[in-house]
């Protein structure tokens, strides 16, 4: 479990980093390393060059405005999780981060890294997709914003090209009449989930105006389903999802978890929305 040989660069400016990436089609960005290093050690990934972005300036910000939360590429999960401002403006990010790995890993792992690693079992991609967030990307062709719905292509696959660096993720703020909730089921505390659901509900008085749920660890991609008119949200979600089986959860069991978690999380989000709307 030692990586194959690779070149290593630690640029101190974004342009240098982009050049280093652009020069080598087999180069990879190294952020917190909590996903990439295990892949290297098991020789499942053998990039020819690592471009370590930890030396880049001004990327560890967690900026919170009324619009939402902007997380820089070097902000660690733990920094985002510790921010009371983040929780106030978009509590779903905080709710989800509590379920991401363990404290030691959150101290190194970056939130943006998690968003662009696009692991279908990860919490944050589903959260970003559900909230309609986006990622800001720098590349040889300049800066662009990629909406979450265009970001996730397949398991561990995004629409970013190999010479681009994600510099910031944007999680929109929670509206005054909206509520969120989050639940996942993992085999052990801190593990990737067997299935997880995040919900976003908007109310008008007692009426639900819109309701949707983001699913992770269910299908091959983080998937958002609109459940506004669903009578049986679990079944309605299942109709839109293509769950897969693995050694921890059979297909039937995973479907059962969707059936159980979806209405629970929707109800909790509705409750949250009503509290906020009235409060």
């Amino acid at each position: 479990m030692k990586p194959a040989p690779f070149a290593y660069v630690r640029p101190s400016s974004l342009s240098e980093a982009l050049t280093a990436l652009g020069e080598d089609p087999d180069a990879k960005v190294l952020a917190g390393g909590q996903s990439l290093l295990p892949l290297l050690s098991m020789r499942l990934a053998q990039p020819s060059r690592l471009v370590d972005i930890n030396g880049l300036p001004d990327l560890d910000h967690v900026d919170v405005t009324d619009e939402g939360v902007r997380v820089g590429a070097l902000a660690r999960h733990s920094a985002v999780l510790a921010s009371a401002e983040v929780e106030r403006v978009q509590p779903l990010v905080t709710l989800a981060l509590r379920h991401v790995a363990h404290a030691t890993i959150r101290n190194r792992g970056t939130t943006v890294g998690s968003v662009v690693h696009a692991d279908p079992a990860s919490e944050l991609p589903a959260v970003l997709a559900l909230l309609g967030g986006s990622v800001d990307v720098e590349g040889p062709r300049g800066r662009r914003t990629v909406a979450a719905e265009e970001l996730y292509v397949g398991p561990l696959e995004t629409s970013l090209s190999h010479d681009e660096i994600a510099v910031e993720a944007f999680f929109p703020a929670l509206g005054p009449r909206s509520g969120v909730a989050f639940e996942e089921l993992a085999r052990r505390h801190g593990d990737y989930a067997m299935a997880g659901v995040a919900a976003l509900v908007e109310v008008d008085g007692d009426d639900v105006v819109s309701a949707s749920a983001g699913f992770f660890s269910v299908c091959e991609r983080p998937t958002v389903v609109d459940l506004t008119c669903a009578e049986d949200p679990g079944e309605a979600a299942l109709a839109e999802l293509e769950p897969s089986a693995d050694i921890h959860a059979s297909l039937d069991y995973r479907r059962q978890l969707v059936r159980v978690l979806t209405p629970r999380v929707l109800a909790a989000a509705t409750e949250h929305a009503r509290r906020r709307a009235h409060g």
Partner: protein
Amino acid sequence: MTTRLFGQRVERVEDQRFLRGRGRYVDDVLVDTHAGTLHAAVLRSPHAHARIVGIDVEAVLDLDGVHAVWTHEDLPGPMAEPLPLLIPHPALTHGRTQHALARDEVNYVGEAIAFVVAEDRYVAEDAVDLIRVSYEVLPPVVGIDAARAATCAVHDDVPDNVGARMEQRNGDAPAAIAAAPRRISLDLMIERSSCQPMEGRGVVSRWDPDTSRLTVWSSTQTSTGVRGCVAARLGLDLDQVDVITPDVGGGFGVKINHPWPEELLVPMAARALGRPVKFTEDRREHFISSAHERGQVHHVEVGFDDDGRVLGLDVMFWHDHGAYSPYGLIVPIITATQLLGPYKPGAYRVRFESLFTNTVMVTPYRGAGRPQGCFVMERTMDAIAAELGLDRAEVRAANFIQPDEFPFDHGLVFQDGRELEYDSGDYPASLHKIKELIGWDGFPALKAEAAAEGRRIGIGLACYVEGTGVGPYEGAHVHVETSGKVKVAIGLTTQGQGHATVFAQIVADELGVPLEDVEVVSGDTRRMPYAVGTFASRAAVMSGSAVHLAAKAAKDKALRIAAEALEADVDDLEIVDGVVRVRGTDASLALGTVAVLSNPLRYAFDEASKLATQFVVGDPGKPPVAEDDEPGLEGRDFYSPQRATFASGMHAVIVETDPDTAEIRILRYAVVHDCGNIINPMIVEGQIHGGVAQGVGGALYEKMEYDESGQLQNASFMDFLMPYVTEVPGEIEIDHLETPSPLNPLGIKGAGEAGVIPGSAAIAAAIEDAEGIAITSMPISPSDLFALRSRKETP
């Protein structure tokens, strides 16, 4: 008087070092650059079953930093032979072992094929990637069903895949069952798991050309065993080989098997290359190239009366041995015999087949066949209770061996080849304690209350007996230095159990010295060349007894010399705080001074020696060292028991299952434990805590997921789920019972494996109680439980 340390909660002397990161493990040996240590990596088979058509290592030799590569055809002399079959047995008619490097055929994913030594482990792994092997892939045999079906064979010359068939009986069980008023049959299964010590295997070796000596450091459970096989396979005299076991980060059984291929290849390479060589197993290697255990399928026929008394018990089981059988039949024999637990069936027959499969080989893992046996027996007890509508505890009580029936002979032969005869125990008292501790009788009310809230809770109980402290022997050497410090050497190894504490307690008590003055060294063949090893919960019983005897010998000698020096009677002497005193007088002599007097060569190097000049010992008419005496204040003795001593215990657990998600949560876990006289309750409780954690792992999480082609799907800690501390019950409620063993001087029994044994049995019973669904296979995940529920609804 100093207080007796035996039985006290003495803090572990090891912990300061371990907790501050000052432990020194095999990988910490010879790390500085001037040591010039080279590093090894192994090419392992990617196929479960294949013929090796050719191996091309050309590209490796061109790689910078590579020093050498070996395949089977490069192995000299005895190195080329199959590895030894450690524990042969007449019933093991087709025992098979692997070669240090595969010859012609590989039989599991992970089997060693080539051995590379390079400047560092990175280069060594790069080199491994460059070796080209052409294989003719053969159909693999994966799992017990496939092995029994035998449409293909693991070993060509064992076409039915059966390595061993064995039967033991006491009475005529089939006839007793046929004649019994009630009968049931059950099919019960336990999946494969493995030890997974925090530190994997590791070997370092250095050849010293000046003295022609080889030093081997191995993370092993038997340094003397490793020494013997290294000498034999490398063609060295035993005297040329020293094996040192430094700190070991856990063993749990996997490190008692020996020699592992690397334990021979590393010393071979060190000698050939004239440089120290190190191999540190990584986690993936530990999954696919060490050992597994537990996989067994059992069929039970049982006949009983209306009180639940077992009149006849007939068990047939199939043991998945993996690709090879270096450790013989120890695991299935333990299942076959220890299955009986605290019970005395009217008649018993047990048969097993040990089957080869194209998977990692099987050697003992903490519990070693007992968790399976306990699962079979305890599930049977629960099934009898269900059949009769009786309380599960009552059915057990009806079958107990009674306290006045010891020694109790089961009429069977145990793993050590001796009769299965229990020395002592008090099972009714244990049952009483566990029922009190968990609140057994009040549980139905709790369950009804929970049900009213829509919650499902269940309670389970499981009892076991564990043969511990098997022979043949262990020894100890106790040396009192002139400083008064006491150096103790034991031959078996230590993997974190706290041996340096408990054995120091025994010595301090016997010699009357402060605990701080006693230092215990283990697993170093230079200090104790005769030893067996650390397994079968035997260290406390075997080495503990030996240490006691050796300390007693040293004490006897000290008193004899002191009596002479003080002109007193031996019977009037006592040793307190390291000083020999004539009771009731001021006459005294420090133990260190006695040590000086024990040696006629009296250079006055230190204060103790100067002080000793005032005393006169020895008969001037005789030689300075008398005929049957030796210089020095030392004691050396060995302990060898007639047979094993039998510890016992009972676990009770309360679980809650989620009606929607099928999650399984342990609400309470209680243990009553009887390991005879307890040397240190804190250490015994630590052993129980660890055992329970592994039991929880085996019951709810751990399982080797092989696919049909024999690839292990979960060969990492990401997918092989060991419980975190968050998954183990926060409080494990423990009560002790101390039924001394009559077999050894201290009345002790082993405690190392006990905690793990009844985990699956107790947790399965609790889930069954909560769910009303028969639980016959462990481990069980929420996904599995959901499948069982669905099957119940739509049969």
